[in-house]
């Protein structure tokens, strides 16, 4: 009975209602501007804001669990232009790198399929952070723990949808049963393809399927998503094997170097003969 979200980026208008709703419901503070000097600029510049785009935060963070990305595509001649938006968050992967990595069981999956960091268990070891192939989960200096989108764990376990989906005025973010969402996504994909437009679903195969998946009008890379995400733990067996083989090799080198007992015996025998 997995729940999830389908984000149709082609009808997103970049209003950021979802970003605000997420902050409000989850009580996430706004990041204050950090001003710094930039060479050649006479006035102080807020260097944690992009400052050259409607995209204000630039990335997801411990206090930005949702991030609306603004992608401006302008061709060389500056005649053709296109503005793409995509509201990004944790994908609640079916095979979640962050959850696999956590050594304390702080990250768990609930009965609705969403992946949650239990704040009272996390020790802030930060191993989950590079283990997420989508760069989602972030560390907060303030709490000393890892934070990310919970798929509004409290709301969805009380029969409500996620705050972002509720706030979205265009229906770009849909919350619901995964199976229903997929039907909707396939229908929309067929519609766009019928009109001859470029479109693709991102999230059916990646990491055994993402519970939050997207409809993109361009390559995933354009939207800041990895083209070929790999759940990092899938490398574990090979890495372990190679490391064990090396250990055996070093052991063998030691054996050859240190088997003085055998050498010693040889020498003694030679002596006797």
């Amino acid at each position, binding site marked *: 009975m997995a729940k999830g979200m389908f984000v149709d980026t082609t009808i997103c208008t970049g209003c950021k209602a979802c970003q605000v709703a997420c902050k409000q419901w989850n009580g996430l503070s706004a990041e204050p501007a950090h001003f710094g000097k930039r060479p050649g600029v006479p006035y102080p510049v807020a260097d944690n804001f992009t400052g050259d785009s409607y995209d204000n935060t630039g990335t997801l963070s411990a206090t930005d669990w949702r991030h609306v990305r603004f992608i401006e595509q302008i061709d060389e001649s500056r005649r053709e232009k296109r503005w793409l938006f995509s509201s990004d968050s944790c994908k609640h992967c079916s095979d979640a790198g962050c959850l696999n990595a956590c*050594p304390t*069981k702080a990250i768990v999956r609930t009965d609705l399929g969403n992946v949650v960091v239990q704040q009272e268990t996390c020790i802030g070891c930060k191993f989950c952070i590079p283990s997420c192939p989508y760069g989602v989960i972030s560390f907060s200096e303030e709490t000393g723990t890892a934070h990310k989108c919970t798929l509004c764990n409290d709301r969805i376990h009380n029969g409500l949808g996620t705050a972002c989906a509720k706030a979205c005025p265009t229906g770009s973010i849909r919350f619901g049963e995964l199976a229903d969402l997929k039907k909707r996504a396939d229908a929309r994909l067929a519609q766009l393809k019928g009109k001859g437009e470029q479109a693709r679903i991102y999230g059916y195969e990646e990491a055994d399927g993402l519970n939050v998946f997207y409809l993109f009008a361009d390559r995933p890379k354009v939207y800041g998503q990895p083209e070929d995400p790999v759940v990092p733990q899938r490398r574990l067996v090979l890495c372990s094997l190679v490391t064990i083989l090396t250990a055996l090799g070093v052991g063998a080198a030691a054996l050859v170097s240190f088997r003085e007992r055998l050498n010693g015996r040889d020498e003694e025998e030679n002596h006797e003969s």
Partner: protein
Amino acid sequence: MSPEIIQPPEWAWYYIAVYFFVAGTSAGAYFIGAMEELFGSGREREVSRAACYIAFPLLILVPIPLIADLGRPERFWHLFIYNQGGYPYLNLISPMSVGSWVLLIFSVCTLLSFLDNLVADRVISFPLFSRYYNRIPRRLYAVFGSLAGFFIAGYTGVLLNVTASPFWAATSPFMGALFIVSGASTGAAAISLYLIWRRRNSGGEVERLEAFDRVVMVSELVLIALLLILAGRTALPLMTLPFVAMFWLGTVALGIVAPLWFKYRFRRHPFGDAPVLAHYLCILAGGLLLRISLLQAGQL
């Protein structure tokens, strides 16, 4: 893979890389000692004794940086006990989880070997150890301890390889192998330094240790080359300034190539104490710089 989106963990090098180095050296020293214990003659025990005296004191330093780097240091025990259920917790696919447990096992082995040697050297007396010290138990710690030691020396590399950070991911599956080999080499250097300090650096045992170290250091160079080839473009940070000094000059040139040349050049001629001492120190510094470089290059 689109590298710009992967977040670095921002592990502090002065905690984590130093931990990699200290634990690797301790583990390397211990398994060399254990090999000598298991395969060497019982007559000469200088190397295995030195190994035991190095492994444990180094290892008690280890929890300090590990715990200090946590966001919530007071909760470090959650690594062993699931705080919400109160039962022991082990996550088999998380090298950090398995590593924490093995670190515990390894500490026990190094402690037992340490005590065992203190008893054998009559520094302390402990009836249980004195009665059995020369028999089965010593071999038993050596077997379990060297298995745990190999694990400790290598798992940190595997831990880096199984992340999504582009450089660490691209160097898969060889980081663990490189860390084991480097641990063996810094462990051997630590043992040699200890023997110099105790003025026991002569005899057949030391020659055998040197022979072992030469093989290990050549493999280390091969593994570094392999790693860089695999890493390709993701290794570009290693060509920028702090890394050129740390990695190429520090680790490769002064930490491996120069000591190796020294070892081959003077392997038949006894050389004055000071250069010998210096070349061991170079090996140790090279090992530390290797961990710092590889850790930091993956966190840019």
